[in-house]
């Protein structure tokens, strides 16, 4: 799974938590999950759980606290899934 695939999966998970779909139009690696997409911060836990289920990884609470942008999530997950899977 390459980063583009991870990016698409991550956005696919997060989009259901975005009330205003227009905020997803120019989503990129720098997009802030809370500030740009206006995701309710209380729901980040659900997004992390969805990442864990989708990518079959465990995300520690301290690591989750550092995920602020789409790119943070993509890079963190890419690191977790390992080099064997990182390159298609």
């Amino acid at each position, binding site marked *: 799974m390459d980063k583009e695939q991870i990016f698409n999966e991550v956005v696919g998970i997060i989009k*259901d*938590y975005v*009330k*205003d779909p227009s905020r997803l139009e120019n989503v990129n690696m720098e997009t802030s999950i809370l500030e740009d997409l206006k995701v309710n911060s*209380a*729901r980040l*836990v*659900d997004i992390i*759980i969805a990442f864990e289920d989708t990518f079959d990884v465990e995300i520690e609470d301290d690591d989750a606290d550092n995920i602020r942008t789409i790119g943070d999530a993509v890079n963190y997950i890419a690191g977790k899934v390992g080099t064997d899977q990182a390159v298609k």
Partner: protein
Amino acid sequence: MQNRVVVTGMGVVSPNAIGLADFTQALREGRSGIRFIPRLEELKFACQIGGIPRNFDEVCGDYFNNHRQQSFLSETIRYAAAASVDAWKDAGLAVPGDEDPPDWDSGTVFGCGISDMEVIATEVVPTVNAGKVRRLGTRVVERVMGSGTSARIGGLLGLGNQVTSNSSACSTGSEAVVEAVRKIRSGLAKRMVAGGAEGASPYTWSGFDSMRVLARKFNETPEKGSRPMSATANGFVPGAGAAAMLLEDLDTALDRGARIYAEVTGVMANSGGHRNGGSMTAPNPEGVQRCIRGAMADAGIDTEEIDAINGHLTATFADPHEVKNWAAALEVQPDQLPWINSTKSMIGHCLGAAGAIETVAAVLELEQEFLHPSINCEDLHPELEAFADRVVREYKQAPAVKTMAKACFGFGDVNSCLILRKWEGQ
């Protein structure tokens, strides 16, 4: 002088119909919403029938933005939300957008009987017991909290007045109306969404099945199972759903030219205190009679002004006692009792939603001048023979019915009663 309160909007999710138009038709037809429920058979329930709103998932898209949003909600809350949004729209009010400010004059009292046992049983308990509490996510509390229904309704409708949930077992739905009416009367709110909801779950119904208070002899003939006032009634049929009423200060309703269904002229809620035969599961007859008389006094009416009664009438052994309590409260002989019917004969006992759905039924009957049949009591209970001519067993055109009494009685020896008056101008 206190404000007068009128019903200007209604919404209903019932086992025999979803939406006001089809619900009205179902009432006219005497349509049963009771079905065989395979899951109850698999779980070895004695009662394997129930009333569950049909095809509800198909209409949910009209209320919630996407599938995931729906999955965040419990069934109880989805029923409550759909009924409330419908009531709001039916009253001619626009559903606000996310950027609109709260409506500080509008609130809600919306309850449920037993929270959402399905979520507790299928998600909370297994996950916690497996030591996976961190995987529960953030959606558990809002789905099982006692105020889950009102909290969700408040957000959907942007309510800025009091948003709260009541719970008084089978009296919940009508008690919500009592509380909302008092709020408006006192001038503390202009509009209140009042109602009740209950999800369908074997885990909710299991305790009743074990108490042997559910109908267990009609698994082969579900539509015959809910038999209030019948000689062969042997327990209630569990049901689920929700109903909401938009209650409004009369002056506010008139100012905006709202369509008015009915006026809530009298309300009362009380308890029998578990005395004089009352208990956790049985009503103190004096408490019941005082509740009915209290509502009449609140409305300022005498017995002869009540044209019809929508009873609590569940199809347990208590039905004859209830009918006799009505006669005693109204101080009439059996043949003088107002017309009486039971909506539960068609939809079963929807617990926390019962009082709300049945009050909507009563308001529709008043507005459209009919009385719905109380089905499945062709073999009237022998103790009710003297009342035989007063039990509405067939659809009846009823233009002369102007005032109806609606009461509910719940576990805990709690009672609530409403006096509803057809709106014919001031």
